[in-house]
């Protein structure tokens, strides 16, 4: 099916929920209201014509600093500086968060892209884990890294980072930690080795500690 036609089907079903159709050159996509995304996915999964039985990818996105007009300017993300100390910034990000769903149908052999956008303050999207079981881990990952809370998810824990980790690293204003749970994350000076191991003496310098060649 044509992607446009799929969107029209979807729009007919969702009504208000389908916000817009973006006919991008590379990858057209449908913008869906956050509240309607679970319904939209369930519909696309169940409908015989669309039959999207595979969720290829689910990506959480932090849209902060992205210019919708295209000529966007990237927000320089923070890292560790050359000395390994975490860079600090006062900037507070204010852009939306978003989720993109890439669907594929094994039977119909067509793809479709859905996107939702939620304000940063809300950061809640309905879960689609009941539609595709594979979404469970993807959503956990999106929660972990981008900090989008998926309502109705059976087991929304952090996926990659530890439960005790602070912050969501893929947000544009994320600041790198210097230490976490006793583990240093910053680059220490090389001389600042907590376990200095002495270099072995050059051959033959110390009698007794040498091999039989000198003995």
């Amino acid at each position, binding site marked *: 099916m044509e992607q446009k036609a799929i969107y029209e089907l979807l729009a007919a079903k969702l009504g208000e929920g389908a916000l817009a159709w973006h006919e991008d050159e590379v990858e057209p996509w449908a913008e869906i209201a956050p509240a309607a995304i679970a319904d939209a996915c369930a519909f696309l999964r169940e409908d015989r014509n669309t039959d999207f039985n595979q969720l290829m990818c689910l990506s959480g996105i932090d849209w902060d600093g992205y210019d919708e007009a295209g000529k966007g300017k990237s927000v320089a993300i923070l890292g560790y500086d*050359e000395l390994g100390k975490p860079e600090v910034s006062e900037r507070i990000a204010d852009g939306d968060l978003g989720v993109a769903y890439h669907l594929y149908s094994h039977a119909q052999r067509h793809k479709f892209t859905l996107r939702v956008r939620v304000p940063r303050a809300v950061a809640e999207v309905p879960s689609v884990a009941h539609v595709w079981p594979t979404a469970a881990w993807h959503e956990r990952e999106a929660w972990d890294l981008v900090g989008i809370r998926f309502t109705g998810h059976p087991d929304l824990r952090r996926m990659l980072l530890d439960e005790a980790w602070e912050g969501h690293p893929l947000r544009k204003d994320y600041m790198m930690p210097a230490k976490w749970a006793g583990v240093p994350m910053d680059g220490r000076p*090389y*001389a600042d*080795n907590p376990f200095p*191991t002495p*270099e*072995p003496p050059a051959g033959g310098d110390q009698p007794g500690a040498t091999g039989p060649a000198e003995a």
Partner: protein
Amino acid sequence: MVQYFQDIYAAVGSALVGMGVTIKHIWKKPVTLQYPDERQVMPPRFRGFVHNDMTKCDSCGICAKLCPVDCIYIETEGKGKDRYMTRYAIDYNKCIWCSMCTENCHTGSITMSHDYDHSVYDRRTLVYEFMDPTQQKIPCHRATREELGWWVEPKAEKKAAPAKPATKPEAKPEAAPEADAKPASPADEPSGDKGEDK
């Protein structure tokens, strides 16, 4: 019941076939390369430790800029004609041997050598310093280099190179892709004639 005996037969038969394969290998000469005694001859494109020929380098900084891991440290002082390089170091705590620094070096000073085996006891020694600031500073500007008798990039070669859209002034002249110009430099690296153990 038939299945029972078939299974036993299959188990014994396949085990014997497998043992045939392994016993065959006992008589073959092992493929092992006995490393300290024997060394593999590296192909020309092999990427070992990065080497920078300091007599050629004019500290344009492209290598440091292109390095995906920021492992090249260049420090300069002065401006314009009085610009001198005071430090050129490669930090093997970070280097990933990707060869991106060598591709765009217009002077061809930075190359991947065929050396690869240097383990160390102290991590600090993995910062390979290519110059000693107490001894020498290297002029960066072309005119200064010419004046002081340092190696400069031959003009003719520069003109032969196809014009690039983003030609920059003296300090950063672009050159043709280094894709195939590689074999020239490693040829003189002491790769094969390493000291052998015995």
